[in-house]
């Protein structure tokens, strides 16, 4: 059974989603939305992994998606804890207002 949707379309969709995530990280100011954009990028990469996994009929891509999800969960837990800690001290969640390390 040949797939009707060619692999390259999945790659293009993944590229579009990844780019939208990059735009979000670079131009938004709210730390929370930046985190959501990072999730978007991780998902684009997951899509790419699963598409290649389908192409090669190998389960290894699925395993990678599994690990990416575990790391994403850990990252979100830590990241949101940091955002809560910063908000508690400085009453802001905007990355432009947090410049403690900048001279």
């Amino acid at each position, binding site marked *: 059974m040949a797939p009707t949707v060619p692999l390259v379309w999945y790659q293009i969709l993944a590229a579009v989603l990844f780019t939208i995530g990059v735009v979000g990280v670079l131009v938004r100011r709210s730390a929370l939305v930046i985190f959501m954009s990072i999730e978007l990028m991780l*998902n684009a990469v997951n899509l790419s992994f699963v598409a290649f996994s389908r192409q090669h009929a190998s389960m290894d891509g699925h395993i990678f998606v599994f690990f990416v999800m575990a790391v994403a969960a850990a990252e979100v837990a830590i990241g949101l804890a940091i955002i809560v800690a910063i908000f508690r001290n400085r009453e802001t969640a905007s990355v432009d207002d947090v410049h403690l390390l900048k001279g």
Partner: protein
Amino acid sequence: MFELLLFGMLSGIAIGCALGVVFHRNPVHCALLLVGVLISVAGIFILLHAQFVAALQVIVYAGAIMVLFLFVVMLLNIKGETPLLTPGAAKFFGFLFALIVFVELIWTAVQPSPEGQGMPDAAPLPADFGSPAALGRVLYTVWLYPFEITSILLLVAVIGAVVLAKRKFF
């Protein structure tokens, strides 16, 4: 044909919701639109015969992670940003850099492979491809050590989150 139609529909929803995540003012709406992206990507996973990964995507991402996001958004009661985007040169260079990344990704995706014309045809799938049994068989044999290390990573993350969220940390 039906597969193609479904792919077009799901990718349209995914891209629309993704644009919403990045350009919507209200963080609660951003989070809900991100759920839309995650669920349509889960649909595309099913098109790719990755049923178990699609289920994980809905349960872990759209369920657990997004609940955490929404919880923090509502806990902090963050107002929409004004202005929405970072001002000045940073915005210009942000879009420029994203455009460069996009062109590079697309260029890599449409490149013919060095051996010949395009990708080889998709390999025929075994009957249990994408099932929990097949995934578990690979995960608990070939990838056993990475799996165990992941559990340590999650433990560290839990401890870190508890320590960071404590009052009087800074």
